[in-house]
């Protein structure tokens, strides 16, 4: 949080707001895009303006839930394009907040892998366009573990020398997915008896954890505080970049297939420009930026083909074949069952 001398800063802020208001009325198609911090090239909007003449500003959200809260409260007004994970894109569609994707205005959709256009959460990309995709597995220090992990149970029921040196993701769907996969269920399982079993598995696992960690697990691996963590493949790459002994594996029980997508809002007044923006992001060069800089796989064949070969030598999971990736189950919106998911996660986190 910034600490400014508010009394002196106030006139400056007012002046700034006035100028900003004047500036925004000056151009017609000024897009408002909400994205995670650092999830697109810092100069993307300048390049977008040079390419299409449209301007846009990028506002940031820290989590899916944060932007969903805002969109639901405003009925989607105030934003043109938002970046959200696939289950949340589904919710926006079910709530009638997502605009139908007009494929004729997005020629670069042709760059997508055919597999990426047939995924269960949105076959045919009717309301969303995938931006990044990947798996959730185990990220570990190969030099500090006696044996390579092969199963989710290596994380959930760790051997004595690993106990207290593991972390799990705190975000509900991925926390639950680890238990669901270990117990042999779908990552979208909602049957109460099965979820009770998953809950108990995860409460037992909690007793052996160092911490729940969504953001710094890879640095805990680098420092050696943790030796085995649940991780998104792209984030494991950040650890691999700092220490080549860090490795990533998908356990034998499988993974979820997660997708972060771009959704145009029905309430947008600049839909043509919004589609132009998506088309711009799907350009092979622009989309490759995400793969090269945030080390996430992108569902864009042209972009992936353009990547330097060294990238997949350093980060082997970047080279994961698309057919292997898409055999995993996509996280879906579970509707009413989400409340039960929330409660189970509260129970796990409150368990002593």
């Amino acid at each position: 949080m910034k600490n400014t001398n508010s009394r002196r800063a106030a006139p400056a802020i007012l002046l700034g707001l006035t100028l900003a208001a004047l500036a925004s009325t000056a151009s017609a198609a000024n897009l408002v895009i909400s994205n995670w911090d650092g999830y697109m090239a810092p100069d993307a909007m300048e390049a977008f303006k040079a390419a299409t003449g449209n301007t846009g500003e990028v506002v940031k959200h820290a989590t899916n839930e944060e932007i969903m809260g805002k969109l639901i409260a405003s009925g989607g007004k105030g934003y043109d394009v938002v970046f959200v994970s696939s289950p949340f894109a589904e919710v926006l569609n079910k709530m009638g907040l997502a605009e139908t994707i007009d494929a004729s205005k997005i020629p670069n959709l042709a760059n997508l892998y055919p597999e990426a256009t047939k995924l269960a959460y949105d076959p045919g990309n009717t309301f969303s366009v995938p931006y990044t995709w990947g798996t959730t597995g185990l990220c570990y220090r190969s030099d500090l573990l006696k044996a390579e992990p092969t199963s989710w149970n290596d994380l959930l029921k760790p051997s004595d020398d690993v106990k207290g040196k593991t972390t799990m993701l705190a975000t509900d769907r991925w926390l639950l997915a680890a238990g669901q996969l270990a117990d042999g269920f779908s990552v979208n399982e909602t049957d109460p008896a099965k979820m009770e079993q998953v809950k108990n598995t995860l409460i037992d696992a909690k007793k052996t954890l160092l911490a729940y960690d969504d953001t710094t697990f890879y640095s805990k691996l680098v420092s050696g505080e943790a030796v085995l963590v649940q991780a998104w493949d792209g984030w494991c790459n950040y650890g691999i970049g700092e220490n080549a002994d860090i490795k990533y594996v998908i356990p034998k029980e499988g993974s979820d297939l997660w997708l972060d997508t771009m959704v145009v809002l029905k309430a947008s007044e600049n839909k043509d420009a919004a589609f132009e923006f998506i088309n711009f992001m799907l350009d092979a060069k622009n989309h490759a930026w995400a793969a090269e800089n945030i080390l996430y796989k992108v569902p864009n064949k042209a972009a992936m083909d353009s990547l330097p070969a060294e990238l997949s030598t350093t980060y082997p999971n970047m080279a994961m074949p698309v057919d292997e990736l898409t055999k995993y189950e996509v996280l879906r919106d579970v509707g009413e069952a989400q409340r039960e998911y929330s409660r189970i996660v509260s129970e796990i986190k409150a368990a002593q």
Partner: protein
Amino acid sequence: MTTSRPTLLMMPALAWLIGLMVVPCGLVLALAFFQRGIYGGVDYTFTLENFAKVVDPLYAGIFLNSARIAGTATLIAVVIGYAAAYAIASCRRSLQPVLLFFAVLPFWSNYLIRTYAWIVLLNREGLVTQMLRWFGYTGEPPSMLYTEGAVIAGLVYNYLPFVILACYAPLSRLNPELAEASRDLGGSAFTTFRRIILPLTMPGIAAGAVFVFVLSIGNFVTPALLGGGRFQMIGNLVYDQFLTANDWPFGAALAAALIAIMMLLLLVQGYASDRASTRSAPVREDA
């Protein structure tokens, strides 16, 4: 129209209180009586379900656990803080402001940074472990971070200055002749402390303790950072309802319950210190 000067002077503070305290708390309370929409948001149908959920054993348990953690932190902070305030008040008058300055100095840096500093200290490869190794320790590094102890340490550290300041005020105003009189009458140092000094400084202790407890029980940053998400306090639960579960009405009901607990404690403390100040004549007949 004539408005008296006191009323006029009250206006800004009153506007502040109503606009930024009464109205938001009222909105929180109102929100707690509605239903959650399937996908988050608020469905404006009246219900008492959210309050029923607050007393559900799962959530009531989290309340009790938070109270236990906050209570432990309060107890430790009061013991350390009172001793420090006593020591400061016993120093030369000219030295006291300097010592108080050092006591509140940590407040000049950001709460998050101060809490992160504890991560640097306590983590398995942190400063404490390195120091131990430097002294010849070769065993497995101790697990200190992400424990309940780390959460309590963080709370005590961050709120200790409140206790020191609250206890220093009555201690420094204490008439030294009272203690002298007690000793002249044959009271031992301990009796003098227990029967003269402690009762007269009780309002300060109560104020400091309530501050620490109220700030600790609603805290969510410290358990998240130093507890590694393994210790759910009520503040984290409220945070989760608003920012991850998108169940605003239930989050509002939890927040309203928390505010009610805090207000009750502040009322009790206010009443106690009121009673103490009306009775704090130099000689207490019932002592």
